[in-house]
């Protein structure tokens, strides 16, 4: 099944959820839970916490499916945003309660090898984003990666990359401006 067909299936299942259709939620779970669990696990780094968050994610999808708008968002970008937001909220709460120190992976923010990519996201969208990220300076790209993949804050990134907080903020803000301009070309 290709990516566009998969996207239509997920969108159609999401549309059925507000009517109280549990089978539709199960369809969404079956088609998307491996990707969303990967995203959440990457941010939290620990299976048990990641599974708790994944549970919250799909209960949120059940409650908020009526908000999904196929004309505004792709179903995967909507789902990934819910998963990342839940995971990052959990991460911030953990750091506050001191249960986990910021992961020290100094020097490991370099680009990961690109895997084959998920069939869930259209390959051309990924290729376009990848090309635009490739146009950023290496330190800008590394900072964005740390935020997107690991849920790191400005402060954590500044410590990790050994620059003042203000410098990190301007790196990321400049990178986001460049990224938007490139994606809109």
């Amino acid at each position, binding site marked *: 099944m290709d990516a566009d067909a998969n996207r*239509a299936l997920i969108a*159609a299942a999401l549309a059925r959820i507000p009517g109280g259709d549990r089978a539709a*939620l199960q369809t969404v779970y079956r088609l998307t839970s491996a*990707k969303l669990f990967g995203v959440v696990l990457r941010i939290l780094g620990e299976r048990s916490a990641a599974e708790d968050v994944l549970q919250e994610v799909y209960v949120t999808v059940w409650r908020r499916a009526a908000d999904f708008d196929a004309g505004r968002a792709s179903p995967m970008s909507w789902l990934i945003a819910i998963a990342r937001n839940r995971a*990052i909220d959990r991460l911030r709460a953990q750091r506050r309660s001191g249960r986990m120190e910021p992961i020290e992976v100094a020097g490991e923010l370099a680009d990961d090898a690109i895997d084959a990519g998920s069939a869930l996201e259209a390959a051309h969208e990924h290729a376009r984003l990848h090309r635009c990220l490739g146009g950023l300076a290496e330190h800008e790209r590394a900072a964005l990666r740390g935020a997107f993949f690991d849920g790191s804050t400005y402060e954590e990134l500044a410590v990790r990359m050994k620059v003042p907080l203000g410098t990190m903020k301007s790196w990321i803000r400049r990178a986001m401006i460049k990224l938007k301009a490139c994606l809109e070309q």
Partner: protein
Amino acid sequence: MSDATDHNALPDDELLAAEFALGVLAEDERAAAARRVARERAFADLVAQWERRLAPWAAEIAEATPHAQVWERIVAQLPSQAAPRPRLWQNLAFWRPFALASGALAAACIGALIYLGSLSHEALLVAELNGNGKHALVATIDPRRSTVLAVPANLAVTGDRVPELWLIVPGKDPRALGVIDAQKPMALPIPAHLMADATTEAALAISLEPPGGSPTGQPTGPVIAVGPLTKL
């Protein structure tokens, strides 16, 4: 919203939306931004745009299989019975724009209503297809005649694309029902082998395709509206 002085910069709200979507804000700033997402539609739209820009990056994250118990825990948290939503086509206000529309569209819509009125209600399946915050189309499937009647409402078609209607069945590839007209109601025949799949388990979707319809037999353009099939 105040624009920053540097012409290369993003407006303050958009910058905050980008930071929120990226996930780089510390806990307090993040909570404040989340409250704005919940309350302000314009800000929520900015965040959604950034989420959409960044989401393809997740293709680089390896998938992982959660424990099977996670699904059981999710089911245990669902309410026992969801309240049914009122159906759009039961709302007179929905039909008012059709009555006010001029010329051929109004005539065609009245024709469609007469057509609907000539049918036995219990057999019909109806889907309200929504997209971009709007009611895009109402489709009615008549199993006895093996037809689907597509009545467009706000169906936004851009460029030289045409809207194509799809039958979406869980676990199967989308089935093409044909290209429809963005302006006026159309009745399309449903191939006999697809009628068995036209049930309340299925949904209808509209994608934008090249003139003549999808060249591959599967949706190739963006899905602009979807809606589940329900009994009328």
